[in-house]
């Protein structure tokens, strides 16, 4: 009996002393974490995609709290959550965020199998990075999409897929969060994170070819040849610049007048998500004069309609 009592007392004493030790140790060496970090983390999407530029959502939350202490949340954006999430974050931190326009990934290549025939067959590992090491790739275009789907693999939101017909990646506008993972994965820097535009409408040059016009023209039917016609058309807004034989439309300056689309002799400029043209426009624009045989573009102009886009008679 005595023995049992002794054991209980001894163990109890050890337990008590240890508990006290642990209690004081935990008080003394406690790591103080700003509770706001946890709160901010809780409203973030927890996709840990790294699209914000920080290592995961916790890293971003820490950065937000730090920035809030400094007085501004400027430059911090969770591309996945977008504006609503940033507002929640700002609420927690007692700050305000400026409205930011939603963005989307845009694949700047329209070198479908038809526009840009495959000249050789790549037999190595099916990865764009590997194919890029061979130089030109399967087609003659050293700037165009390689079609092995490194971007598809990089996407955590199932928002980009290769279209088996065109062999080009297509972005699902609903799912894309503009995290930029695909843009980083592309060894040819074809994918651009661009302003989504009002109602999702935007004007884009779907080409990345920086070769001189004659070479670019030869390798792909839908390439930008750097002729500069679009730049002239846009002299009012100056939204289009020509650099390295490649036109680029500044989404912030673009007024969506669609004149550049008509001016482009190669059909490299695309108006995305615009409603079909009104019937009266059918007779008026240049295509009607360019050639009677060419059916006038009445279909909804979207990414795939390059065939309908009349090609200027100047083409060699």
């Amino acid at each position, binding site marked *: 009996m005595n023995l049992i009592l002794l054991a209980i007392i001894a163990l109890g004493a050890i337990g008590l002393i240890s508990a006290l030790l642990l209690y004081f140790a935990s008080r003394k060496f406690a790591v103080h974490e700003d509770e706001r970090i946890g709160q901010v983390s809780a409203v973030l999407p927890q996709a840990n995609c790294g699209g914000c530029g920080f290592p995961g959502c916790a890293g971003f939350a820490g950065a937000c709290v730090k920035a809030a202490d400094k007085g501004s949340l400027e430059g911090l954006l969770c591309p996945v959550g977008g504006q609503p999430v940033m507002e929640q974050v700002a609420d927690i931190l007692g700050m305000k965020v400026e409205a930011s326009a939603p963005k989307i990934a845009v694949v700047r290549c329209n070198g479908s199998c038809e526009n840009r025939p495959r*000249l*050789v067959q790549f*037999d*190595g*590992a099916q*990865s764009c*990075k*590997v194919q890029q*090491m*061979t*130089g*030109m*790739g399967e087609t003659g275009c*050293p700037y165009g999409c390689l079609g092995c789907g490194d971007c598809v693999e990089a996407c955590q939101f199932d928002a980009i897929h290769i279209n088996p017909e065109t062999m080009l990646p297509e972005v699902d506008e609903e799912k894309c969060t503009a995290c930029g993972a695909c843009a980083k994965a592309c060894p040819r820097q074809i994918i651009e994170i661009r302003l989504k535009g009002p109602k999702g409408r935007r004007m884009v040059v779907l080409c990345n070819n920086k*070769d*001189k016009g004659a*070479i670019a023209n030869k390798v792909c039917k839908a390439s930008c040849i750097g002729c500069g016609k679009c730049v002239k058309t846009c002299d009012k807004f100056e939204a289009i610049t020509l650099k390295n034989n490649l036109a680029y439309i500044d989404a912030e300056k673009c007024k969506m007048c669609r004149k550049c689309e008509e001016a482009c002799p190669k059909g490299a400029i695309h108006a995305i998500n615009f409603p079909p043209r009104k019937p009266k426009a059918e007779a008026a624009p240049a295509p009607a004069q360019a050639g009677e045989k060419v059916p006038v573009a009445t279909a909804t102009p979207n990414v795939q309609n390059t065939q309908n886009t009349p090609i200027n008679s100047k083409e060699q």
Partner: protein
Amino acid sequence: MKTFKIGGVHPEENKLSAGSPIREAQLPKQAVFSMFQHIGAPANPVVKKGDVVKVGTLLGEAGGFVSAPIYSSVSGKVSKVDVALDASGLRRMAVTVDVEGDEWEETIDRSKDLVRLSDRPELDAKTIVEKIKAAGVVGMGGATFPTHVKLCPPPGKVAECVIVNAVECEPYLTADHRLMLEHSEEILVGLQLVMKAVGVTKGYIGIENNKPDAIALMTEKAKQYPGVEVVPLQMKYPQGGEKQLIDAVIGRQVPAPPALPIDTGAIVQNVGTCFAIYEAVMKNKPLIDRIITVTGKSVKQPSNLLARLGTPFSQLIDECGGLPEDTGKVIGGGPMMGKALLSLDVPMTKGSSGLLIMNDKEARRAEAEPCIRCAKCVGACPMGLEPYLLSRMSEQFDWEGSEQNDVTSCIECGSCQFTCPSHRPLLDHIRVGKATVMGIIRSRSQK
């Protein structure tokens, strides 16, 4: 018999063209001279459209110390100084010459007479290196590293011997083999010039034992050249790699990068380079032509052609009986390290050692299957690396891990991929990893 110690594989030899003597290829109608024919800075074009050039006229001057000048191999008129597709699959700066006649610069000695070192006692080390540099000689084995750079060891490093790389371990290729049989003395004089340039008295010629006739001939001729020794080597790929050859011949190992082969005291030169050095120094002939093996199982006449640089590959194939119908792939170089060509209209360059035409069946890679952890690739790697690991790391973008596991030591010989029973594209991924890690290291050192 000597060979290197770790790794290596035994690909089928297929030296189909070993018996066909070197013959001169016809002049091209139009020759294209890429300014990127060597490792290092590209050459800068010094001619413009409309200029008349002769054989041996300077077209592009060296763009730096690690660079080499480019000379015209034909006479005619410059028709274009613009980008053109080259064998690397990229459009890069090149000079195009429309060929008219065959007029040579007067300074070039075109006689076939052998000039020995004893005939030109006035040549000193500096003059030899200067002449080699001016002639645009680069490593002819395929790596195309400018030769004069190798002959100027960095301060603190001392050369002890010169090793001539006559291994030609790539299957199919026979250009070096034929060169040894037909120009043995010139190669030996070239070796003597290299030995004099770097101030050593010992020279080795490493030849694999699948070329007994070359070993016998070179051993016989080498008797007249003091300090030169022919070393027969056991057949094993990649014995022609610089590091493997040094290990095989003198038994020393090159430490991991950034150490250079010169740290072992050896300077390695290809037989083709020795021949080019002989021509540059003794005949004043810049590097304007080379021997190229055009071969393949379906090729009518597998041959060794002495062709002018800038000749389009399609013409060389025509001279060997045309492109076979069952062609699946044309490779610039040998089957192990060569690169498949995107177009046959690209011109041959200083590094074009062979043109291999594979039929459709040979050309196709077998489908990749999962890794079965057999570690055959580890056993085959001549650099003692772990290819399965490096490949996997590269696939998963683990560049730190790749760097820790010495991906930069990889010589891209392809032994791992050759030996893999699951046909995994190991080298494809390792190459990406190597290039990325090299880029990271470079940008780190710039900071």
